[in-house]
């Protein structure tokens, strides 16, 4: 069966960042250590979005509760967890109330394969909003090979006409533009301490 594209957290975050407002995503979470993965994902979003990222647990929430929580601070990005055990009726109710979840801040459904199945089977209105933005959470730069890292650094240097040293100097002088690529650049250089 065709699978969804795997993206590391930083790429999902970059996608969110460039979209601006009203972004809906589904992230297919890893089966192992989902709590750690969620924390890392939230950290990554915080870096790229430079704005609060809330986690809302829907495990025992009613649809009305969820609407209320999503409408509170609607500019914040929200990661919605705890939907994996939802049955058909719950998904259908959420689907009917899709417009009550509309907000300026990003909305990310953090789901297991069963959760994605539930959404795709029982929530066609939500799926229509999500479109093809369903990504499997892939490995991050920690497992990027040295060759891949070098190629990415070269691409950044060529694109921005800057050297690695210049980027570090600009970060130290706090003159680095707030572009997400520069965050990535510093992380690839092992200088996340300058962020």
């Amino acid at each position, binding site marked *: 069966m065709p699978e*969804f594209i795997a993206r590391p957290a930083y790429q999902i975050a970059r996608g969110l960042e460039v979209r601006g*407002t009203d972004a809906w995503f589904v992230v297919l979470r890893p089966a192992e250590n989902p709590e750690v993965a969620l924390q890392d994902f939230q950290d990554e979003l915080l870096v790229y979005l430079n704005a609060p990222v809330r986690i809302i647990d829907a495990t025992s929430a009613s649809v009305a509760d969820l609407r209320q929580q999503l409408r509170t601070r609607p500019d914040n990005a929200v990661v919605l967890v705890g939907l994996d055990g939802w049955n058909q009726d719950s998904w259908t109710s959420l689907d009917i109330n899709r417009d009550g979840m509309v907000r300026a801040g990003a909305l990310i459904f953090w789901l297991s394969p069963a959760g994605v199945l539930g959404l795709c089977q029982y929530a066609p209105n939500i799926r*229509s909003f999500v479109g*093809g933005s369903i990504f499997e959470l892939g490995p991050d730069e920690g497992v990027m090979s040295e060759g891949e890292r070098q190629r990415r650094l070269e*691409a950044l240097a060529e694109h921005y006409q800057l050297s690695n040293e210049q980027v570090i*100097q600009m970060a130290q002088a706090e003159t680095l*533009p707030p572009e997400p690529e520069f965050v990535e650049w510093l992380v690839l250089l092992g200088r996340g301490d300058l962020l």
Partner: protein
Amino acid sequence: MPESPAPPKQPVATRREKFRAYMKNFNPTAPARDAIGSGLVLEDLHNSLSRSLAARADLEPGSQQLLVGGIGSGKTTELLLAEKWLGKQASTLPLFIDITAETDLSGLNTGALLAAFGLHLGRRFYGTLEAESSAEDPSEVGNACRRIKEFAFGRAESAVEKVLREAREASAQLKGYVPGRLRPPIPALQRQFQDIAEPLGMLVGAFREYSWEVVVILDGLDRLITLDKFWAVVEPDLRALRELRVSVLAAAPISILYESGKSISEHFDRVHHLAALTAEPGKARELKAVLAQRGGAEMLGPLEAARICMASGGVLRDLVTVARDAGEEAYVSGSDRIRIQDVGRAIQQLGTAYLRGLGPGQVQALLNLNKTGSFDLGSPINMELLVTRRVLEYSPTDFRVHPALLPLITKPEARIA
């Protein structure tokens, strides 16, 4: 302190800003009202449909029209355009209400449409015709507004009221009820509707005294994709609105057009169908115009644009989604422009989302449709495929598998639940 180099020049900001501007224009989840306000919408995409809807509502007070279409077909946009047109007419007050954004309809919440209508009407009365607020207004209109708020949000019951209500309920239970031989074709409105009908009538009358006719535009009812839920929610409320001679435009699910839905559609003065647009290569003029209106030419070549149009199947939201996702692919991969492989990945993702959740029976039904072209909507599986957009309708007799999904089901390895 090391000398800091000058900040990077044009290319940095230009690329990001270029992509951000593109993504903003191709945002399928941005409020439709914003898209219209930003000039991103082609107002005459569906042969003046919005004007046709609006004109009838304006000329025929009390008329009730449905706008029917699949998910993502652009119903909200057409209703907003109708609102815009009506707003320009003298003495017509259009009230646009996205009902599912205001209340939870999943529990078959009858009376919710009337409550929302009354609240909007009251706000508009004090916002446009009268300066004071309903809370302070001792007139009949002020009293009507308070009764509508009580109907909508409830109120504290006094001890005497509680005793009287309980006595009434106990009496009703003791008496029982023997049904007559003839069932009325239209059941009488329940007591709760009588409670709200009077203050609503008062408010509508107040507008008429100022020579204003009210048209209510109800969006969001199409989320009730199963017919029984849709009809249970709308029937009593729309009947009350008809008695008030308030024109209604409402979104409805596509299942209204077929099989048992036809008996529901007969209750309306007119049912407008928003079909999927032509997406075939060389004929997708409207879809290409949508891309152009949103500034797609900045980032998309003709080949990429044509591929997006074809894969959308003529579903407007899917068109915008694939264009947006292809832009995101290009941005994340470091390209300055959207390439055909970016479009391909975006289409593959959309198709995979449509594929997920399909069982072997559903996949077989899709393969049959693709092979024979025939599609029996008496089958519950087929109806579900239609309302969930795996199958698209181009006319009452022309159904096709969504083109983003089709290549995935024709691969043998895809035929697994």
